[in-house]
């Protein structure tokens, strides 16, 4: 009796200890995985804040001579990344205009016809599309648009490559969101004699809008930082370019150009910082929308 009590006491102590170790282990690993973001932000702010001023947002990238003179005089490099900011807005905007309607309609089809054989095939292809390496999409953009359509590097080619890239996240988030909407809402609308397309466009999709927009925002933030496909399609430009059939710059392309020019190295940090802030804002915006526009049913 006594012996068995002693053994079970020891066992319990050991078990409790294991529990404790496991709990603290979890906490420390959770902490570890949140460290990289803060290290990146710290590094970028430390090295990039000097370059950021009003000119940085409104002037185009400096040429290498001006930069060299400024660096040798220990001044900040003149100029900014306005050509990249405008280019990113145009390329990402155009990609969104292409991908958002397509993705939402496709996702709606998948959620409405979940058991359909064709829907199964489409779903599989969209999932595969998610895994296509971005550089391959660049090659596709080059072959499809750059050579036959615009006859040279262009923002349009970049937008199409990026729209393919953001499509899967919009399709899947739309599908998952709409699947959660109770069928009773659809029945309510149909019982009022509302035609099917209006039921979907005016009742079902608006009810799921927060989930759909979250997917859209995450899709945008994913493509906003893409570099590889743009190297083969939009190429880059030293001036602000608003003609979508011409080579156009983008913030990530500028980071790559700065990296290749020893005189412009200190611009890398500022451009990266701006890009990171932009993408963080998109992510925070997605979270805010998901919370604020959530519809209770």
């Amino acid at each position, binding site marked *: 009796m006594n012996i068995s009590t002693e053994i079970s006491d020891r066992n319990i102590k050991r078990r409790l200890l294991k529990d404790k170790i496991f709990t603290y282990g979890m906490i420390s690993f959770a902490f570890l995985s949140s460290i990289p973001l803060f290290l990146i932000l710290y590094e970028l702010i430390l090295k990039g804040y000097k370059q950021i001023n009003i000119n940085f947002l409104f002037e185009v990238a400096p040429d290498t001579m001006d930069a060299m003179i400024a660096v040798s005089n220990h001044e900040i490099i003149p100029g900014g990344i306005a050509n990249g900011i405008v280019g990113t807005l145009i390329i990402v905007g155009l990609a969104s205009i292409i991908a958002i309607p397509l993705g939402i309609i496709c996702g709606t089809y998948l959620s409405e016809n979940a058991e359909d054989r064709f829907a199964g095939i489409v779903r599989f292809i969209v999932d595969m599309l998610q895994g296509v390496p971005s550089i391959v999409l660049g090659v596709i953009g080059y072959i499809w648009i750059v050579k036959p359509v615009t006859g040279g590097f262009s923002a349009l080619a970049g937008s199409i490559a990026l729209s393919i890239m953001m499509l899967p996240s919009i399709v899947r988030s739309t599908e998952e969101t709409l699947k959660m909407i109770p069928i009773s809402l659809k*029945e309510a609308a149909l*019982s*009022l*004699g*509302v035609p099917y397309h*209006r039921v979907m466009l005016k009742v079902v999709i608006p009810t799921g809008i927060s989930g759909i927009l979250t997917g859209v925002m995450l899709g945008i933030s994913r493509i906003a930082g893409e570099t590889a496909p743009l190297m083969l399609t939009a190429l880059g430009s030293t001036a602000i370019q608003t003609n979508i059939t011409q080579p156009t710059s983008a913030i990530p392309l500028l980071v790559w150009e700065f990296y290749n020019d020893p005189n412009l190295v200190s611009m890398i940090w500022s451009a990266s910082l701006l890009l990171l802030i932009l993408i963080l804002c998109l992510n925070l915006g997605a979270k805010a929308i998901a919370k604020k526009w959530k519809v209770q049913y």
Partner: protein
Amino acid sequence: MESTILAEMPITKTNKKLNVIQNSIEHIDSPVLKIDDLSVSYGGDKYSIRNVSAGIARNKITAIMGPSGCGKSTLLRAVNRMHELYPNTHNKGAVYLGDENIYKLNPIQLRRKIGMVFQRPNPFPTMSIYDNVIAGFNLNGIKLKRPEKDEIVERSLREVGLWDEVKDALHNRGTFLSGGQQQRLCIARALAYTPEIILLDEPTSALDPIATAKIEDLLVKLKKDFTIVLVTHNMSQAARISDYSMFMYLGELVEYGKTKQMFTMPKDNRTEEYLTGKIG
């Protein structure tokens, strides 16, 4: 082909049984809706309701009762073709609204004449109370002037006794109302179109007793303007408010008659067994 065998079964047996079945179905003079030998299947040869024939009396409340799975909801949904939402449904027989077979009509037009209220209150969560009531017009792209809309909203909400409770909050979301208020809002939404018939699929089964009593009072009041068909598995509810009752069992319309008579002197054994709690 099994279905035709099923349909012929009573005839191949004894004529006596056939007589019993016919006698227990009350004949309604000049019905607003005439169900004629209707069978509905959700796929294959298995029919959820078989050979149902009945007339629905104008400006009365008709209750459809029966144990779960007996086909009462299917019968109700077949009347405004909501059962067609499920793939592979097919049916035999006809339902006449006036002179028209509803299966020859466009379901969109049909549903504007026959409104429906569901088991769980389902106001549109993105819309205000006002927009919920007027949804039948807005969603169908029917343009109305503001005063016309205001009038329809007020009339419909007054009809369901919700006007005084919500008149100061018309532009709040409908989902903030209590369950009973939401259900009355859904009835108002169905009334706004002034349909001829309103179908209700267990409208009070998700509500508390007080809200249920309010809905029942409302239905009794509404029957002077509308014909009401109600599915319920609550026998006392059918006894309290309905004028006519149908008893369905295993997909068959067993008995149909005046409620008072059916509850006091049922003609069919199965009805009696159901009413006394032996089956169901």
